[in-house]
């Protein structure tokens, strides 16, 4: 008889232990899923920082070039203006002659529709 109860005790204990193990497993599972968010956040932030740095670098590159291209363009412009002045000097008298010629070339004519 003593063995019977002992046996049953043993079985009950085994059951209890089994049930505890399963519960622990379930708890672990919940924890694990919670941890997913935390780990995801960490990965996401790392990615974000990387992208931010890439962007900042790119931005600097592009904007950095601004003042160089600005002064480059101004140099070109000044060059072209100097060219204008040079061309003006060499073509001036030719143009002036044309102007004076046409200014004093006065044509006397009736309007095309006039009938006297």
């Amino acid at each position, binding site marked *: 008889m003593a*063995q019977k109860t002992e046996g049953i005790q*043993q079985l009950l204990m085994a059951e209890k232990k*089994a049930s505890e193990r*399963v519960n622990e*497993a379930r708890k672990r599972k919940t924890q694990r899923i919670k941890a997913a968010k935390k*780990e995801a956040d960490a990965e996401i932030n790392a990615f974000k920082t990387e992208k931010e740095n890439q962007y900042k670098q790119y931005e600097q590159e592009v904007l950095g070039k601004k003042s160089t291209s600005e002064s480059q363009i101004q140099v*070109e412009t000044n060059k072209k203006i100097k060219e204008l002045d040079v061309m003006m000097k060499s073509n001036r008298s030719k143009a002036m002659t044309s102007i004076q010629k046409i200014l*004093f070339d006065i044509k*006397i*004519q009736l309007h095309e529709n006039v009938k006297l």
Partner: protein
Amino acid sequence: MAGMSDSEVQGQIAHMIAFIDQEASEKVEEIDAKAEEEFNLEKGRLVQTARAKIMDHYDKKIKQVELQKKIQQSNLLNSSRLQILKRKEELLNELLDDARKTAYKMASEDPSRYRDTMIKLTMQALVQLLEPKVTVQVRQQDLDLMRKIIPEVQDQYKKFTQKLEVKLTIDEQNFLPADLIGGVILSAHGDKIKINNTLNERLKLVSSKMQPELRETLFGPNPNRKFRD
């Protein structure tokens, strides 16, 4: 429990205990595996969504920067073009002002040419007016000259039109400014019909008509121009 020995019973119980343990282990394994699976799924999904959002965000920012750069470039080029055009205009105006001075000089230093010019200018205006009574305004310094050429002009007019006559009167109350290059202003019927045939007015017309030609002469042909008819 008749018929089973103690050891047999123990054996059975041990067996059952082992079975319970085994079942529990399997269950635990299953739960752990599931846990890992869901962990990865959830983490993966969160990371994926966030990554896509972040990349989208930075793509937009990059596009903005590129757009800004383009706008900047365009503005710089535009400003450059304007500077050049402005300079061209300055040079052109300088030239025209000089033309005015040159013409003024000619008018005062070559009296016979000026006389000829005055006759032509008056005639040109008269044949446009075709009026029998015309008033003419001149600069004060041209008064004498005008008086002298009126008979000749009236004569030429008659010959040119082959029948019409004109009476030309000088307005001695209202002279043209002395700093004009020269020329005449003709009017008929009071001030109702007026023709400004001063050399200054002519120069204005001539220079505006000649603009494209002048620009080409001075600065060379326009590389962007497509049509020349």
